[in-house]
């Protein structure tokens, strides 16, 4: 149906964004394809190497899932901070990613966890690392009539921890000024791998590269300072209602530092 009607049709997930935009007459589609009528798209499945989250699972399902809480508490935390409980009860995980708003909370958390998304369309199925999924403001690699089917989150290696910090400058239920996720794997009390991702700053979330230097280091002040300089080089914040460019740069440093310190403190 999506293929037949082209730009006249749009898939409908939880509807918390699309229904608002259509009510506001910002968008109009003669055809909505209700994905909730497709069975099995809302499941959270444990596989041998990770957890597969169906695109139609709700935010609240992730927030309250014992499986997610046990394997990826940072992810449960990120999903639990979004909007309000009614929105989380309704909004779908896949719809959230496919909408690709730059202020979304899940992308940074999913990026540091190394998540990938499965897509299915008229050309068949493909798998895309989440880092390559976002192309711009509200733009993804999804082709016309292609759907996001599920999100695969690989289990974290031993001695790994992750954290997601959301910083609000307006009300608690508002979009964040920025979101920071960090992931740390240790071996023998030293850092083996560190990953950092930020959302809310520019049109797409940023997974920070060039952090290999932390290998076999301890996360002392000098290492963290170097990390913060690298982060600063790789972000290009734009101003919005929730902070100026200058402010967002300052807050990005502060919250990356906080996140990394939390990870090294909770040993």
């Amino acid at each position, binding site marked *: 149906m999506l293929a037949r009607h082209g730009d006249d049709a749009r898939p409908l997930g939880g509807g918390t964004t699309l*229904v608002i935009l259509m009510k506001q007459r910002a968008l109009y589609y003669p055809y909505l394809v209700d994905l909730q009528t497709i069975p099995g798209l809302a499941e959270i499945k444990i596989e041998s190497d990770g957890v597969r989250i169906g695109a139609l699972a709700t935010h609240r399902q992730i927030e309250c899932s014992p499986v997610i809480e046990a394997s990826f508490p940072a992810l449960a935390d990120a999903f639990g901070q979004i*909007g*309000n*409980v009614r929105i989380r*009860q309704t909004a779908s995980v896949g719809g959230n990613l496919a909408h690709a708003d730059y202020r979304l909370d899940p992308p940074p958390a999913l990026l540091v966890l190394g998540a990938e998304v499965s897509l299915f369309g008229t050309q068949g199925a493909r798998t895309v690392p989440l880092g390559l999924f976002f192309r711009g403001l509200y733009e993804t690699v999804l082709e016309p009539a292609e759907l996001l089917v599920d999100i695969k989150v690989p289990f974290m290696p031993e001695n790994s921890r992750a954290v997601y910090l959301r910083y609000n400058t307006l009300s608690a239920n508002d979009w964040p000024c920025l979101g920071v996720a960090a992931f740390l794997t240790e071996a023998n009390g030293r850092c083996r791998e560190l990953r950092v991702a930020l959302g809310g700053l520019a049109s797409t979330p940023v997974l920070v590269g060039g952090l290999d230097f932390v290998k076999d280091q301890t996360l002392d002040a000098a290492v963290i300072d170097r990390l913060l300089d690298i982060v600063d080089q790789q972000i290009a914040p734009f101003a919005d209602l929730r902070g100026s460019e200058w402010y967002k740069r300052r807050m990005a440093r502060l919250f990356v530092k906080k996140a990394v310190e939390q990870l090294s403190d909770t040993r």
Partner: protein
Amino acid sequence: MRRNITLNINRRVETLTIDDADTLLEVLNERLKLWSVRESCGVGVCGSCTVLVDGQPVSSCLLLAVRAAGEITTLEGLDMGSSLHAIQQAFVEERALQCAYCTPGFVLTVKAFLEQNQNPSDHDIREYLAGNLCRCAGYPDILRAVRSAQAKINSRQQ
């Protein structure tokens, strides 16, 4: 497109012909005359149009009526005949309402919350209710009402 739907609402079954574009809020107000469900922000932020679907709070302003599966409860569905529900009673006793526009949404959200969490902290209550806005700023009274409702419900269950 016009379509026939069946709603399970407040322990009744209603069959209606509606438009695909109708929100559940519009159907509840205009067709079923359930006026406790109130529109305010229209974008899922304020909580005035909260209904319970299978016991979970959702914004009826964002739910297309054609998708409204499950058991729907509005404030009218809490009706205990001549007496108020424990949560309503607590809101009255603690004077947790002034203009009362937001109250039905609060009462339903508190109902869902206390069913999920029988022994909440103040932080739990604030966090769960953060998506319900009261512009008369009665939040401390509402917090007390939740505590009072919790005590009433727990004492009944013992």
